[in-house]
């Protein structure tokens, strides 16, 4: 049928290595950002997929690097989440029809298990105090204020501990990668 092709919108995944990498790396980050407006996880995911889908389909924006995609999508996601909140959460602009299987490919595409493995082993070898702060912040998702209330410690101490732990992790990564 002649009109079929005109209405079919797809994007070639294989030609989008930057997107595959960005999606795999930053999906959680983008979703967390959308959730800062206190919307549900599902709504946050809808927003992220809406932004990603429309950028992939319209191709009006050229991206030079994964970081460029990261920042651009992050800002768009926050702006859309703000708009949603201002409308009282009643309406989310639906994404254009990107084939969900393609999004699934983006999610599973690439593979960075090696660096994940390195990070895992570094975390496992952290001293107990560093391990605890990383666990409370990045696994349990507490703010410094909340951790301070839980552990009865001043916020400045906790910030220093986190800085020290991350410095140690960064140093270990450099050592393992080199």
């Amino acid at each position: 049928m002649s009109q079929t092709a005109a209405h079919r919108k797809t994007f070639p995944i294989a030609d989008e290595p930057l997107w595959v990498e960005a999606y795999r790396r930053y999906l959680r980050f983008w979703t967390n950002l959308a959730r800062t407006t206190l919307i549900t996880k599902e709504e946050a995911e809808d927003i992220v997929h809406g932004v990603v889908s429309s950028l992939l389909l319209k191709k009006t924006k050229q991206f030079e690097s994964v970081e460029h995609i990261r920042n651009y999508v992050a800002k768009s996601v926050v702006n859309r989440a703000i708009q949603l909140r201002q409308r009282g959460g009643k309406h989310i602009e639906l994404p254009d029809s990107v084939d969900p299987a393609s999004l699934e490919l983006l999610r599973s595409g690439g593979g960075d298990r090696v660096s994940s493995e390195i990070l895992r082993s570094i975390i496992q070898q952290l001293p107990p105090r560093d391990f605890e702060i990383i666990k409370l912040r990045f696994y349990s998702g507490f703010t410094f204020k909340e951790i301070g209330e839980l552990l009865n410690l001043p916020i400045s101490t906790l910030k220093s501990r986190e800085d020290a732990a991350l410095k140690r992790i960064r140093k270990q990564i450099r050592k393992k990668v080199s």
Partner: protein
Amino acid sequence: MDDSKNMVRDLVLGNLSPEESLRVLDMVEKDPELSHELELATSLVNVAAEDGKELFGESSTLKHNPFPRRRAFSRRSSAYAGDAWTYLRYTLAVLVTIGVLLPVVSHFMTGPYVALSALDDSGGMERLRTAGERELARLYDESISGNDEETIRSLERYLRRHPQSEVTGFVRLALGEQYLRSARTSMLTLFPGFDESKVNRAFFQLNQIIDSGGNDRLVEEAHWLRAKAALMLGRPDSAISDLQELLRFKGRLSHQAEQLIGDIASITSSE
């Protein structure tokens, strides 16, 4: 700098307000060191989410944050500010504009095939319920209790999470039908028109079903809905080619297809 790094980590963890997030993102764009900090924090969040249970162990007290999240967004209302007379003049101006523009706009927007494009109450999904796809029926029953937009969102979510499931085709059909139902726009019920982007989204889903060429009944229903979608956009030729496909199927929709081809032909010949 350390404070900026802390803010970047809070950004990744979703602890900042949207306005603060945008400000920190600006800083990240300008400062490669902060960009690296964001990378590390993102990797930690990913590792914690993927392997956290194994890595950090079960901790019932700490796994779920007991603290209520702070209100990160200030709710603002934009109330209309003006006296009663200004408000009345404004309202009248809007009404007059709508009254003048509506017939003109509807003349261009409403095609002659609008009446034929109406979807019957017992749509394709209703007819397919007897086909034994219980999971789909449950999903559909759940979703129709809400409004159109919510239904579409839950079906889109289902497709995103289960793009290759056994009932993907059925969900696509439900989604296509729902897009068409919600595509109808009418002002004061006088000048029906259609939201083209929604009709196109329906086309996308229906094309996927037809192209995949799976279950015959699904494909049949998809052709029927695609014919309706074509009529919504005022494309009788496309509609007829889908309806002719239905005649070739000789299935349960062929009689209706024949009738609709006749109706389209009578409108086309009188134009």
